[in-house]
């Protein structure tokens, strides 16, 4: 309980800081949101025309996926670049706790955009998008997004300048969401999907054809990525402290 109260303080601080930043740079936020909405809608149209209806739901949360996966690493890089990292490191919270809270703030701030995309997709593309698996997808997006984000944050601690690698990862994610059709799943495809990041979202994107096996596979996929994230982050965090690279830019 004491821990939850402590984390609530941190979450409030991060929300307040994000809102203060939004106040300072409002056009940046509005511009980013608009461009994301337009690009994603265009991709959804294309995917729908190709007949990959199962991928539409996953694509609706794609901006959220990018934001969540990018937040821990980008906020870490920003802190290192402007020099606040040492202050954050020497706080009463761990770096992981701070990054986790920042991801939650990103999640909260990206919810309105996701619902706008959902609304437009339902109106313009597919009115049959089911809200139940969609809310489940949001939950899986949050958990998987933070998991992948923490791995990327670990990479920033060790390798610092990783922009090109991250661009490649984001492209791979887009490729995954556009071209791996969740419309029909063979056993082979399910196994692959369990292993890849955000596979749970592709699986639940099946919508009406959800079975217990699909749910189990989605939970398995998420568990694998939570475990991977925890392990890899810890290894990279300790390595960066040992090698003296933590906080270097």
């Amino acid at each position, binding site marked *: 309980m004491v821990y939850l109260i402590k984390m609530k303080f941190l979450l409030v601080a991060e929300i307040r*800081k994000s809102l203060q930043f939004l106040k300072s740079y409002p056009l940046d936020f509005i511009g980013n949101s608009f461009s994301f909405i337009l690009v994603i809608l265009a991709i959804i149209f294309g995917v729908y025309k190709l007949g990959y209806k199962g991928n539409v739901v996953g694509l609706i949360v794609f901006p959220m996926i990018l934001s969540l996966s990018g937040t821990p690493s980008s906020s870490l890089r920003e802190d290192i670049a402007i020099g606040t990292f040492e202050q954050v490191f020497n*706080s009463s919270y761990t770096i992981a706790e701070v990054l986790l809270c920042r991801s939650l703030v990103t999640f909260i701030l990206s919810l309105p955009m996701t619902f706008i995309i959902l609304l437009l997709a339902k109106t313009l593309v597919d009115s049959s998008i089911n809200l139940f698996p969609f809310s489940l997808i949001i939950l899986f997006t949050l958990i998987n997004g933070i998991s992948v984000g923490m791995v990327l944050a670990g990479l920033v601690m060790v390798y610092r300048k990783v922009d090109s690698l991250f661009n490649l990862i984001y492209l791979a994610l887009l490729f995954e969401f556009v071209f791996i059709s969740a419309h029909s799943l063979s056993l082979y495809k399910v196994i692959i999907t369990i292993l890849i990041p955000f596979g749970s979202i592709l699986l639940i994107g099946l919508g009406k054809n959800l079975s217990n096996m699909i749910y189990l596979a989605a939970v398995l996929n998420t568990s694998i990525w939570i475990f991977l994230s925890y392990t890899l982050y810890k290894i990279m965090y300790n390595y960066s402290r*040992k090698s003296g690279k933590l906080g270097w830019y």
Partner: protein
Amino acid sequence: MADSIVSVNNLSKSFDHGRVTVFQDLSIEIPKNKVVGLIGPNGSGKTTFIKLISGMILPDDGEIFVDGHNILKSFSVIKKMIAVVSDSNRALYWNLSGYENIQYFAILKGLYNNYNKSEGERVIEQLISELNMENFIFNKVNTYSKGMRQKLILLMALLNSPKLLLLDEPLNGLDFENALIIKDIIINLAQKGVSIIISSHDKYFLEEICDLKYAIKDKKIVFAPRDIFVSKKAMAYVCLINPMVLEQFQEYHYEIVDYQKNIYAIEFGINDYNFFNLIERNLKNKFLEILSIIS
């Protein structure tokens, strides 16, 4: 170890896969409630030592204890009792106001875990008042001078009432007046019983403010030879009084000339911190005493 705020046993640290060794088998006890200076040229390992104590860098070998707690085993406890102040050009969110920065870091430093909201705010207000920051605290940090930023960073370091304050080059880039203000704050903190470790390449500043001075030499930390600094200054002062004495101290010629330059600079209205040290530190009597011995 009981009287030590920092205790280091057989510490070794190297970088670049062992190619650059900074510390080798270093053992040192730093006493509590003292202002301790760590002097050394750029790249000698001062910042590395600060980062090792703050846990940002892990040692290759050896142990570090802060107030009796092992840094590897009780890191979360140690984090609550130390504060680090480094480069004031960084370490702040520039597009937030000073107060917004304080609010954010107050939560991060756990101020509200120890106090309720109104008590926490009272602590902040008190610190703002003690550091005379009322006039600019609500302005954006990007409008602050370097001295204002350094004060703000010091204030934020004090939010968790640290037992140990680590200052890495706290006077870097500060002008004469701001250096004095920061110096007074440090002295004030020391009087309140905060243990302070200052790393700096400014030996005059350290000499003025520190109870103990250490230097990094041969991958170890050793006591800095205080007397040499004093006598060089004393000789510089002596030489100013009587340039004939200069001839007797040829081996210190360059240092003496350097001090003389500082002293002459003041005649042309240049505010020079080193010169200020020379006369404001009440060393004049010491100089005169040495002068009487020499003569």
